[in-house]
């Protein structure tokens, strides 16, 4: 009983015949400490799906979705998973995208049991890259391993070759959450391989105060600081770095420390800050222009603040939407142009 009402409550998308759409449960977060990231990402994701629907769906199959607020909280995420995993009108479920390592972990076994793909874009368990361990888990784009090695490669390139890294000193400043710690193992491996000495320093959630961490960094005086931040931890890191006099251009933000929301509040302190990314921010891309024309200008945009159109988190959401939708498209090529089950999408 509950389930039906709950999911229909916030169901979005086009009105299609019951059971005839491709359904995406969205474990989103728009309040709480990480609301900025969540609302940007899911805003982009939803706008992209609206675009697809405006263009007639995926091969004629419209997309539908329902949202449930997790506040980036694992338990809430699980509850949302259970609540939303089946659509209200019987449309088959394509995949879940919790955008949280913690929630991803928690729903991993369930995803396998329920045969619903679990998509983790630019994050996720290191061991999920190998599809045989968790057949229903898909880390898209970067995974912890590729992310860290990209950073090492970049540092190596700066230094004039990976072999030049030997003896260098790096500090990893990471968010005290499953996500933050996820790469620690990889970093150790790579550090050992390249002969880099690494200090890993944790910033307790949410990261409002980093005085001592940065004093310590200044004392260590490393060549580079890898910032594996999330939410408020990022601007505070940049500001505190400035305060203790650590140069921003020797801080490398990872994929979750690269948004406008991370740099802008730090103001001048962010000048020179480097971060890796899988997609640029900006609004000039064709797909964004299409979204603007067909979704936002029609007043259907999901963002409360239109200024955030084209920001990193938004664009990541769009990219995530593209990848999800393309997955459906690929699967349709194999199984036919109809709403597919999670098993088929996989």
């Amino acid at each position, binding site marked *: 009983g509950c389930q039906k009402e709950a999911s229909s409550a916030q169901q979005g998308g086009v009105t299609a015949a019951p059971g005839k759409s491709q359904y995406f449960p969205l474990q989103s977060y*728009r*309040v*709480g*400490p990480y*609301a*900025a990231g969540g*609302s940007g990402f899911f805003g982009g994701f939803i706008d992209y799906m609206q675009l697809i629907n405006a263009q007639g769906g995926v091969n004629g199959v419209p997309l539908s979705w329902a949202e449930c607020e997790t506040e980036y909280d694992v338990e809430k995420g699980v509850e949302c998973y259970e609540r939303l995993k089946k659509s209200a009108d019987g449309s088959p479920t394509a995949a879940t995208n919790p955008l949280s390592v913690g929630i991803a972990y928690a729903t991993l076994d369930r995803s396998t049991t329920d045969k619903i793909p679990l998509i983790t874009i630019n994050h996720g368990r290191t061991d999920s890259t190998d599809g045989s361990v968790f057949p229903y888990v898909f880390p898209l784009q970067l995974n912890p391993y590729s992310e860290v090695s990209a950073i090492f490669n970049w540092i190596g390139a700066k230094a004039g070759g990976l072999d030049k890294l030997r003896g260098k000193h790096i500090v990893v400043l990471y968010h*005290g959450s499953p996500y933050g710690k996820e790469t620690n193992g990889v970093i150790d491996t790579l550090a050992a391989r390249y002969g880099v000495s690494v200090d*890993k*320093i*944790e*910033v*307790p959630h*949410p*990261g*409002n*105060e980093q*005085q*001592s*961490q940065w*004093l*310590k960094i200044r*004392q260590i005086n490393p060549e580079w600081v890898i910032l594996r931040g999330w*939410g*408020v931890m990022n*601007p*505070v890191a940049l*500001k505190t770095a*400035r*305060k*203790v*006099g650590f140069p921003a251009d020797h801080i490398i933000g990872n994929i979750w420390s690269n948004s406008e*929301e991370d740099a*802008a*509040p*730090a*103001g001048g*302190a962010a000048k020179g800050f480097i971060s890796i990314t899988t997609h640029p921010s900006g609004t000039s891309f064709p797909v964004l222009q299409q979204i603007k024309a067909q979704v936002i200008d029609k007043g259907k945009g999901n963002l*409360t*603040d239109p200024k*955030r159109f084209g920001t990193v988190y938004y664009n990541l959401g769009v990219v995530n939407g593209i990848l999800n939708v393309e997955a459906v498209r690929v699967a349709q090529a194999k199984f036919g142009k109809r709403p597919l089950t999670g098993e088929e999408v996989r």
Partner: protein
Amino acid sequence: MQFFLEVLVAGALSGVMYALVAIGFVLIYRASGVFNFAQGSMILFAALTFVNLVERGVPFWLAFGATLLLLIAAAFAIERFVLRPLSNRSVITLFLATLGLSYIFEGLSQIAWGTQVHALDLGISDDPVSVAGLSLSSFDIAATAIAGSLVVILALVTGKTNLGLSLRAVAADPLAALSIGLRLERVTVIAWSLAGFVALVAGLIWGARSGVQFSLSLIVLKALPVLIIGGFTSIGGVIVAGVLVGAGENLAAIYLGPTIGNGVEGWFAYGLALVFLMARPTGLFGQRTWARI
């Protein structure tokens, strides 16, 4: 040694910023015996309102005044709809009610002003400056000065003045306070308005430091041990406690962290508070629980 001193002093300075948050608690606790957990979300509310006004082109002082007016209005509403109906209830009930309040403040601020992160520039630079050979942040020094003067002013206003006496009397026994002609509502509104003012100042300083966004409401967790060590009732006490906590936490993170693990500062202050409580069960400057039989 130089490094040690820098850690110590930088910690002490940021401890004063915790104290800034803790004063809000003390004001309300002194005046009504209410442990106001909503202080953190009041800070969020104040800072978000202010920064959004400024971003819409309102001049600094006008925005400041407007936000303050809003907070005073909130004080009236809280008195009327929360505290008055709950008068004479147990302290734990009142505490829970302020938890409810904090949800309302958080929801309201985010509905009104959205969830994105705002930069706030108070025009105080955050570059390291050298003081007596130590490298310190000029922002910290300015913040300390602001907090210090606030404490002095508030301590004077709520000390031996009539207002101070009224605040304490109402907290001690509301019925008796009424019987001698004190205006319960007015005293409560004044206390909450003062706390709102402190929240605004704290919100600006913390907002300038870490950006104005949701996590501002979480600094109460840093302020609580300061409040406990200082004693719930002493305005001056929180400054001393703030310095102790800030310095202790910094030292612990730097010197203890490597041996027992990262992130000790998450709980260290509470451990410190416990140690102080063992020696003085009502904090350094807290009112003794005068009990007679």
